[in-house]
């Protein structure tokens, strides 16, 4: 582990040095193509201080984060129950699955024009497409999670004579939760991709808006700042989800460790 970390750090340092050398020292990469570290820094100062593309960095980050969290939570709140229902009832599965088969191949990004037509360039359209992109993986993985619960475990639950609500909250949901979390991780990734795309297509604020304006202004430093912001936000939200997962699945990590 020690070795891995030090090699990793060394690599990142070397890449940064190469970046500096290629842009600022020797000018191998022309300034209009990729920013030097100094240009990136000044773009960061620019967007954090005076603001860029209609607001300062905090405002853009806040709005992007807000939309992703809202769309994502909305998707969980609708997708997980639907997945549970489909997993539990063969009838519900037979009824809903064909609709899914039709809608599923359409990538979430393809809903963006329709969302803009329906809801305009504001928040509502973005929440709709984020909801949609996060909804599908939530449903599918929850469904698979329910179906993956060991049959004897379900029979043990019947044998113990569970009331319905307790059966859902203490057997179905925890039993499906490893897969549910897999779905949520995919959902979260899809949410960010979709949000950035939607903001690139048209928005009044947000990180995608910064990227869009920077592209039009041919401002490489600001493009890089925007990309780094997207990466950090994606990483941070994934971390939060990972922590929630580790907490919720303590019993499962023990199980995985026991299996080796």
């Amino acid at each position: 582990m020690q070795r891995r970390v030090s090699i990793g750090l060394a690599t990142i340092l070397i890449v940064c040095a190469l970046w500096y050398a290629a842009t600022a020292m020797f000018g191998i990469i022309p300034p209009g193509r990729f920013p030097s570290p100094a240009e990136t820094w000044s773009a960061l100062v620019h967007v954090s201080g005076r603001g860029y593309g209609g607001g300062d960095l905090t405002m853009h980050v806040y709005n992007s984060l807000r939309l992703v969290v809202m769309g994502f939570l909305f998707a969980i709140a609708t997708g997980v129950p639907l997945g549970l229902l489909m997993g539990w009832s063969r009838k519900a599965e037979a009824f809903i699955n064909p609709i899914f088969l039709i809608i599923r191949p359409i990538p979430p990004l393809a809903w963006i024009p329709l969302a803009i037509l329906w809801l305009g360039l504001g928040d509502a359209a973005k929440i709709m497409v984020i909801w949609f992109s996060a909804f599908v993986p939530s449903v599918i993985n929850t469904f698979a999670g329910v179906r993956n619960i060991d049959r004897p475990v379900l029979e043990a639950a019947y044998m113990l004579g569970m009331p319905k609500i307790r059966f859902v909250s203490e057997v179905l949901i925890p039993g499906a939760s490893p897969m549910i979390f897999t779905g949520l991780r995919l959902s979260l990734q899809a949410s960010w991709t979709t949000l950035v795309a939607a903001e690139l297509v048209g928005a009044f604020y947000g990180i995608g808006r910064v990227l869009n304006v920077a592209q039009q202004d041919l401002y490489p430093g600001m493009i890089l700042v925007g990309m780094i912001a997207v990466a950090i936000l994606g990483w941070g939200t994934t971390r939060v989800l990972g922590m929630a997962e580790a907490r919720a699945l303590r019993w499962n990590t023990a199980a995985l460790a026991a299996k080796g």
Partner: protein
Amino acid sequence: MGVIQFKNVGKTFGPRDSGFVALKDIDLEIRDKEFVAIVGPSGCGKTTCLRMVAGFENATDGVVSVDGTPIKRPGPDRAVVFQQFALFPWKTVYDNIDLGLRNLNVSGSERSSRIEAILNLMNLTQYAKHFPHQLSGGMQQRVAIARAYVLDPDVLLMDEPFGALDAQTRVVMQEELVRLARKNPRTVLFITHAVEEAVYLADRVAIMTRAPGRIKEVLDVASIRNAEDWDSHEKIEDVMDLESFVHLRTHIWRSLREEKAAQHA
């Protein structure tokens, strides 16, 4: 009370006229507090018998009843111990045992005292806060037995409960079950393919045949056990050395082998 009754029970999987006949004309009565083991080759339908009492399967012919009431669905009055333990991996040992009591709306203080008692009886007290996967197979099966026993069920159904354990653990568990069953008698239906296990544990042993599954013979072990005073021996190997035990075991082996031979002929 806990009297299990099979009356002309048959089970066909698939269409009635062309499906697979798993069980035919099963007639068996298990008396209150009696321990009956069913032995037979794999695929003879012995597990299906148990699953019908549990309420997981319905008989296609005849009636399976407990205390005269035909069985419709699973319930905590007929506790099951599964071969694969079937503990809830997301619940601690304590919560696994607690769940059935909560479903029966037992009051909080009574629940905790009953759980303490069973944990103590099964030597599980120190593992109360563990998750199932942190325990060995034998320990997990102890928890499953505790989960069933704590409900104080009329009927206890055990489906090859020691089949997934290694030989040494198995012996320990068998001895423990005998201790538990003598101290705390229940009506038990025990499924196994291990002949020694059946003879050691049961009051009566039913021998099943295959395709279609029928009961070939029912042996009374209890009278021999009492006459020869098996229970005075503490260790399983001492019991298994007794002439009466060997005799019974050989009888069952022969009966099962005749069955095999008949099939090959």
